[in-house]
């Protein structure tokens, strides 16, 4: 029983400042409430609103698209780089994980502005037609946010996958090489199965980053233009604190948690 004395302090802080709020979020999601005055029981109405309101539904779709960008880019590129760069890439790659997302967002909005480096590079190679204000154009803004997220996560994924590749037994490669395998076949037969765990980990951390991508969106686009980059994380913030729709914000937050579990659950099972 003495062991509980060790566990209780942490559990108490965690219970009061994480578990209790989590339970209250679930509870508030069933009420209509402005956060100050009395509340009214509305059952599942807020959840119905989350899936029927076009703005909120779009934000959920955007979150899933960001999962594809945040996870897809770093994992695919990371696999390629980990295979190509042996013994491994420079450790400078950890840098984006140390930069505050707010500062990274700011730097990228300068890079991606109408007179920014990205457009200047495009114009330098004659691609004047392609240049645009990437974050201010609703057809590219979400993709631009995806690029920022991929930049932040590429390094850590590459390092992780590279560590996985290094751990593989060289004998395995020799065996397939004796069978006359080319590099691509070698990759499919040995590397990919060998780093399955690492790929799973990368997908999980990148998906989590994509689903709670508040910081970068908040500083780069604020959800605009025209809602093109609205994400649940930002909508929860706006709904609760600007529109005082605490019930609706809570319902969206609960849906976000469900989405997180639905996305990473299968990945964890696959990579085990």
């Amino acid at each position: 029983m003495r062991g509980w004395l060790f566990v209780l302090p942490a559990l108490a802080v965690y219970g009061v400042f994480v578990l209790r709020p989590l339970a209250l979020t679930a509870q508030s999601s069933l009420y209509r409430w402005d956060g100050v005055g009395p509340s009214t029981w509305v059952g599942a109405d807020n959840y119905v609103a989350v899936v029927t309101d076009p703005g909120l539904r779009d934000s959920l779709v955007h979150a899933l698209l960001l999962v594809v960008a945040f996870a897809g880019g770093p994992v695919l590129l990371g696999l390629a780089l980990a295979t190509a760069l042996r013994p491994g890439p420079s450790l400078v790659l950890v840098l984006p994980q140390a930069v505050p997302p707010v500062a990274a967002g700011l730097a990228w909005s300068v890079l991606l502005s109408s007179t920014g480096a990205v457009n200047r590079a495009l114009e330098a190679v004659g691609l004047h037609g392609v240049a645009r204000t990437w974050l201010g154009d609703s057809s590219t803004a979400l993709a631009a946010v995806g690029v920022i997220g991929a930049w932040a996560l590429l390094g850590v994924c590459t390092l992780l996958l590279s560590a996985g590749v290094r751990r593989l037994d060289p004998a395995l490669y020799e065996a397939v090489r004796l069978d006359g395998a080319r590099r691509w076949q070698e990759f499919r037969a040995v590397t990919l199965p060998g780093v399955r765990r690492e790929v799973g980990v990368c997908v999980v951390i990148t998906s989590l980053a994509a689903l709670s991508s508040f910081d970068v969106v908040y500083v780069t686009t604020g959800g605009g233009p025209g809602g093109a980059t609205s994400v649940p994380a930002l909508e929860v913030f706006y709904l609760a604190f600007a529109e005082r729709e605490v019930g609706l914000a809570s319902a969206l937050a609960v849906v976000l948690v469900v989405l997180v579990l639905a996305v990473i659950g299968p990945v964890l099972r696959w990579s085990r």
Partner: protein
Amino acid sequence: MQRPDLHRARLAVVALALLGIGCAAPGSDLTSTVDGPAVVSEPSCGTEPLTLRARFETGSALAGALADEFTRQHPNVTWDIREEQFDVLTRNAPRVLADDPPDLMRLPQVSDVAGAGLLRDLDGYARWFGWDRLPESQTRPLRVGPGGGPRGEGPLYATGLSTSVTGFFYDEELAARIGVREPTTLAELDDALARAQRAGVTPLAGFNGGATGGLTFPLQSLMGAYGSPEEIDDWTFQRPGARIDTPAGVEAARHLARWLAAGYFDPDLNATDYARMMDRFISGRALFMVNGDWESATLDRRMPGRAGFFLTPPLRAGEPRAAMAGPPSFGIAARAEHPDCAAVFLDWAVSDPVARDLVVRVGGARPLGGAATSSPVEPGSVTAATFAATDEVLAHDTAMDFIANATGSVYARSWTPQLQQLVEGEQTPEGLLARVQADYLDQIGG
């Protein structure tokens, strides 16, 4: 090794959710109403040291200058001033007033917070100081009926430091080069825009990026030309049955869409913020800019002798010209610590000669109340032009409140995204107004 897996985590979430439902409903019946207190003795700041806590708008040098001067005249008063962007200020107003009530707060939009009992009813002060003798058009937007609506009647919840007016600023050098004169009709304005474009100059500097739907400025200017300012105010004040998607409103939105389609704005309009628009206009890269007289002093300083101003021209020459002219308004939190001193400051700002002089010199605006000002305004300056425009709008009673102020969230949630979509060609003028109208009904209905 023991591994708690996802199933357990999920079960725990469900258990916690059930736990939560068993408890009492969130919230309370707390309502703090502060009835218009009759002011029976002279409000003052006393002689004891006190600190006024204030929330001002970023970039408004006037409020800060007035605060400094007030301290010079009342040495026992010091300030704790926080500045925020307009959209942050609007968004945070309810929770700031509820949880961290300042003495003075710049409030673009009063009906939600007044309705929620978060603002002090200023009628008592208004009677004591005689604010009810100010031009009605200047106090109307700041009166709120019971429960938050409609606006335009009921107790006074905020007051301004100056009048204000909006319209078209223009670059006189560029205009002379292109051969453009101040237009007297909307058609002449269209012609001027087309000429600027042919001359290779951006016809209109605008901003519509991020969370700032700056196209509301040109849109409402056009609405004032096509329709009546009273009708627009009815909507902004939440009068029952008022609509924004009127035939005149739709005409105005179509006109704006034509400007967009013609390429009169810079192509990165949706990524341009207010400061960048100012920078482009001041540096002579655009002929026109729709903006307000709060920039007059800045323009006179940064492009002396080069800036001109005219009110949005009407459809037919000679018709009265309307303008957005909401005074930059300040309220006092219901639970403010020093409401009397805050009220003294608000009255002082419009009555003290030095303060009125600051309003002109720093704010570039015409002081509120009183027919004329003793302050020198250089003839030919853009400040002089906006003064004349203010007088014209006051004389014709064609001032209207800003359509972004209709509800607490209509600017951030409806005007801004819808106008950004209009720029992208993803929304039609009709669709834009229909959507804003629907959101608006949703916002005031709830």
